[in-house]
Every structure is written in C-alpha cells, then in structure tokens.
C-alpha cells in the first residue's frame, strides 16, 4: 500500500462508514425504498429492449433527441456531431462518458473540455484513472490535491490549505467555465421510461449548472439506468445518496427535454432560459448481453453508491487500482467483465462478503464474481 493511499482511504472510511450506518438507522424508510427499487430495476432488466424503446419514444415526446448506441464508436460519432469543434464543454460527472472515452475524444476534436465534479476535475488535472466510483480522487490526500492545483493551474494554495480553501479556489476557476460553456455533458442516476426524464443527484451544484447554463445538454447513460417510472427514478436518487453517505442529498435534478415555459396562456413553449437542446444517448456496450444472463444481470442493478468499495479488503489494500477504470472495487470487478470482457479483476475476489452485506441492491457480488471467475477459466482453457 502506498502511504498516501493508506492515509487517504483510512480518512475516507472514518468519515463515511459510520455516517452511512447512522443514515440508515435514522431513516428506516430507505431500506424499503431500496427493496422497491431493486424490484423495479429487475423488471426492466428482464425486458431491457422494450424499456429502451419506451424511453427513446418518451424523450422524443418531451422535445428531446434520443439515441441508442451499441458501443463507444457510435457514441463518439453522435457526441462529436452535436458538439463540433472549438467549443467549451463542461462535464458533470459521467462514468459512462469516461467508459466511452468521450472527454479525450472531444479534446482531440479541438474542444476545451472541463470536468466540473471536483474529484473528476482533479483526476483530469493529474491525468489519472478514477479510484472510486463516486469519489474518483479518493486516493489523493488533501496535501496532494493542494500540490496538484498549484502545479497545474498555478493556484495560490499550499499543503497547509484547508479543505475549504481548496474547494473555494476550484469554484472560482470553474464558475467562469460554466458561464462560457457551449455544451454541458452529464450522466444520469436514473432514466424514467414512462416520461423520458432523467434524474441526477448531486451535492456540489456543478451538475445543475452543467445541465442548465449551456445552451445544449447531452446526457450519456447506460441502458441499465432505465427504471419504469419517474417515481422509481426519484427513489433511485434517494437510495443512492443515502448509501453513498450523503443524505439528504443537496440537490436532485430532474430534466425532461429542453427548457420550457408555460407562462403565456399556459402554452408549453420551448426553449426558455435553460438549454434549447436536450440529447439523451442510451449506451449498450455489453449491457444488453449481460441482461440476458441471469447471474450477470444482477450486476446491472448497481446504483453506483460506492459503498462496496470501502468495505472490501482487496480494494483497500490494492491502492484503488483494482478493476478497469472507471470501474473499481467489487462493483468494478463485475463491470470490468461486462464492459471490457476482462475477467481478471474477478480473480482477486476473496469472497469476504462485506460487499454483499452492504449493497443496497442486495447484489450477491461474490457470487457474481465467482461466476466471472468460472467464465474466465473457461475462456482460458478454450485458448
């Protein structure tokens, strides 16, 4: 273990684990919501194609554009066409965009691109892969962050700067970018198939700004994020926030198509003050195939709360580098196989079982990983 990692992860665990325990104890209804959510998500995963169709149609009804893409190439082509070149693009954290390599692709096209989630911003500056699904820079100590900001952007900060000072400096820098951005790109915590809305939960406020300030908003989302209704989507936001230890979440955003108003004779007119274009890109990239396999399907229930990471001995000892970025930790060992057909991270599972104990979706992660080991063994012996 590098010393930095050891310090950073220990501080994170001390900050986060008891807090999640308390949240779940104080708000028992979250346990019921999590159960309801699992059932709703399972319904979708058993018939994913139908729900994809339903979602695409629903988005179009709200005046948005909706696309289904099979892989990274197709996603890049669409995003590239919408964004063009010479633009300023702000990203509200999207793991799927990272998976598809969208940020680097847009940079190659000649755009100025900024991650605006603080953790993701640090990752961009350091040019490192994220080490945790919701706190991508969890491997960096405060001291390392200060050094990075000073070196890369010339910020007037030092190792003794407080957490607050560091955040303040980044805020000042990014505010400018938000205001001049042409395109905002986000992921989504959930997509409601019935009405085509996307739901995003956050605390920083960067997602709000990425979705509302630039004239164009693109959401890039894995198909497994589809839930039957907007009610389910809101539930997903609450459950994710609680199990991530950030409850109540500071913001929950619902986006249904481009901005609109009904203020003149109550006729709904679009656009209003916010974006004039909304694009939803639903991504397959291995998910549909996984949804057909009764064991792998379980992995698609993941709501990216990042809880399993902090309870996993392997994740803790392996410097956050376990799994194929952006998918780390126990969930990442499952997702590395689904997305990249890489079974090797699964071989590292010691079946400690903590992950299954804490997972809000009750995914029996060690069992899924055992199955991936099995598939990997078969793959090797076929060679």
């Amino acid at each position, binding site marked *: 273990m590098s010393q930095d990692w050891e310090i950073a992860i220990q501080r994170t665990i001390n900050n986060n684990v008891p807090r999640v325990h308390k949240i779940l104890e104080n708000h028992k209804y979250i346990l019921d919501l999590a159960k309801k959510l699992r059932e709703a998500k399972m319904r979708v995963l058993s018939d994913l194609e139908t729900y994809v169709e339903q979602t695409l149609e629903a988005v179009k009804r709200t005046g948005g554009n909706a696309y289904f893409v099979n892989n990274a190439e197709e996603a890049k082509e669409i995003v590239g066409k919408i964004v063009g070149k010479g633009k300023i693009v702000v990203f509200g954290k999207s793991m799927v965009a990272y998976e598809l390599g969208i940020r680097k692709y847009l940079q190659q096209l000649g755009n100025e691109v900024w991650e605006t989630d603080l953790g993701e911003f640090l990752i961009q500056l350091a040019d490192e892969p994220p080490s945790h699904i919701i706190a991508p820079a969890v491997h960096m100590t405060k001291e390392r962050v200060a050094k990075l900001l000073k070196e890369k952007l010339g910020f007037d900060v030092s190792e003794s700067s407080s957490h607050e000072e560091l955040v303040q400096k980044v805020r000042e820098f990014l505010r400018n970018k938000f205001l001049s951005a042409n395109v905002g790109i986000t992921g989504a915590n959930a997509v409601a198939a019935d009405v085509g809305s996307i739901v995003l939960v956050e605390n920083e406020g960067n997602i709000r700004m990425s979705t509302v300030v630039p004239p164009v908003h693109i959401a890039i989302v894995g198909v497994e994020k589809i839930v039957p209704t907007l009610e389910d989507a809101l539930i997903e936001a609450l459950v994710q926030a609680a199990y991530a230890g950030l409850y109540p979440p500071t913001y929950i955003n619902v986006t249904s198509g481009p901005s609109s108003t009904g203020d003149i004779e109550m006729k709904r007119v679009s656009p209003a003050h916010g974006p004039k274009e909304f694009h939803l890109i639903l991504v397959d990239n291995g998910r549909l195939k996984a949804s057909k396999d009764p064991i792998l399907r379980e992995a698609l229930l993941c709501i990216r709360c990042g809880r399993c990471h902090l309870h996993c001995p392997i994740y803790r000892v392996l410097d956050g580098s376990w799994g194929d970025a952006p998918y780390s930790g126990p969930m990442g060992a499952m997702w590395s196989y689904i997305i990249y057909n890489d079974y090797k991270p699964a*071989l590292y599972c010691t079946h400690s079982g903590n992950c299954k104990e804490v997972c809000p979706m009750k995914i029996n992660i060690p069992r899924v990983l055992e199955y991936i080991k099995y598939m990997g063994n078969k793959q090797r012996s076929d060679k």
Partner: protein
Amino acid sequence: MLGKLIYDYLQKYSFPYPIDKKICSGWAKDLPSKGETILYTSCMYQTASLSEVYSKFIPYAEKLSPLSFLGRFIKPSKDEIERAYRILNKIAQLLKRNGINFAYLYEEEPYSGAILLELGYLDEFGQYAKSVYNFFKNKGIKRIITVDPHTHNALSRYNEFVEHFDLEIVSYLELVKDVKGVNREETFVIHDSCLYSRFLNLRDVYRDLINKSGIKIVEDELITGVDTSFCCGSPIKPINPDLSDKIAKARVEQLSKLSKNIIVVCPMCYANLSKYGNVKDWIEVVE
C-alpha cells in the same frame, strides 16, 4: 488447466495435491470408522500451514505434468501438526461431552473440493461433489459434522450440483453448548471467518459461545463489525501470495489496535495471520 489438474489430484489422492493421508488421520485413534454421523475434517486443520507452499506451486502448476508435483509429498512441521491434532481432539471431546456420537473416516476421508469452488472451477467442483456425495451415500452416512468454514461452505453448496442432495451438514459450533474460557483476565479480539460471518449465518453462534465462556471480547464498529471486518487474505493466496500477505498484515495491524490476543475460528485464518501476530484458534482458549 489448473482446475483439471486439481481435479486429477483429487481423483488420485483425494486431496488437491499429493499428501500422505496419515497426516490427515493421525490425530484420531479411538473413534469408530463407521456410522451415520461423521466428524469431517477435510484435512483442513492438518494442512492449513501448507497453503503457503501450495500457493507457490500454483503459478507453475499448469506448466507441469500432474505427476511431477514437487516430486514428493509435502508435510507440515512437527509443531504445526501437533497443534492441529490437539485442536481436533478437543473438538471431538467437546462434542462427546455434549452427547454427540460420531464416526471418523480416517484415511478414507475425502477432501471437500473447496479450493475448486473458491477458484471458480465450478464444473470440476460439481463433478467432484457428485463423487464425494456418492461415496458418503455408499457408506450409509446421513449427517456430517464439519469443523472449519471452508469445508462447511463447500458442502453447503453441494445441493446446487447434486440432484436430491439429502445429507445433513452441521457445524460443530452448532452442537457445542457451554465452554469455559481458560483466560478471563486479558481481553481478546475476534477475527471473524468471512464464510461463517457473512455466508453461513454462524457469526452469532460462536460469538455467543465465546461471550458466554467468560472471555472478554473487545469490539469496534470499523474493525470487527459484520460489514467492516476484513478477510485474512488466505483465499487469494493461490492467485497472489504477496497480496495475501499484505491483507494479513493489514488485518493484524487493525486487530492489534483492540487487543494483542487475536482469536480465529478457521484454520486458514490462523495460517495466514499467525505470521504477524499472536493468534489462537478459539478452541485453544476455551475448555
């Protein structure tokens, strides 16, 4: 392929690698060899200390021919073997004290197949499970008393692979009632077995036994909680021995913050953690 290789060894030696079966059975003398209920060791306590040697061999295993394995049988040290025998004898005594009668299969006792399961060789595990099940059935066995979590877990999974599986699998922990702590002065910390604690529902069973024994246990939400306690690193040893060691070291460091006396309920935890701290099987601290 490693799975096939292990499977071949199992056929030949009833063990994942060549071993003199007398090492496995040497602890027992006066137990009957026939009966409907057996005490089943799967030779885990007796060979736990060999996991180190075994895991060093694994990376080369696929390149070697099955019969060239180290060229000879490997053996635990005298101290290790004596300790394992003491533990097994104590378990047998405790069971008898609680009125449980059982037989023991001596050198005929097969291995459970746990390693195949844990390395993800599910086809081989299923096949092997069937042969072990048939072996038990032919012997007229109805009830199996396990003594370690890996074996208990493997047997508990047989029903996924064996049609109409009808053997009763019970841990000795569920059969033993009162025990008395041999040291009630100092404090102890429990390193839970992952399998017992989070897969087999036995965490409270041994905790209650230990707590009632008068031994003082220290707990901490972030170190010994049901969802926070670490594994010992042993299951990953065949894949990455260094990582396994790192986990063991980190685990002992955590536990030592609570007490220097660490108790375990699994021979593999013992084997992996002992290098870094003062570790005892729980059975060694009660009578």
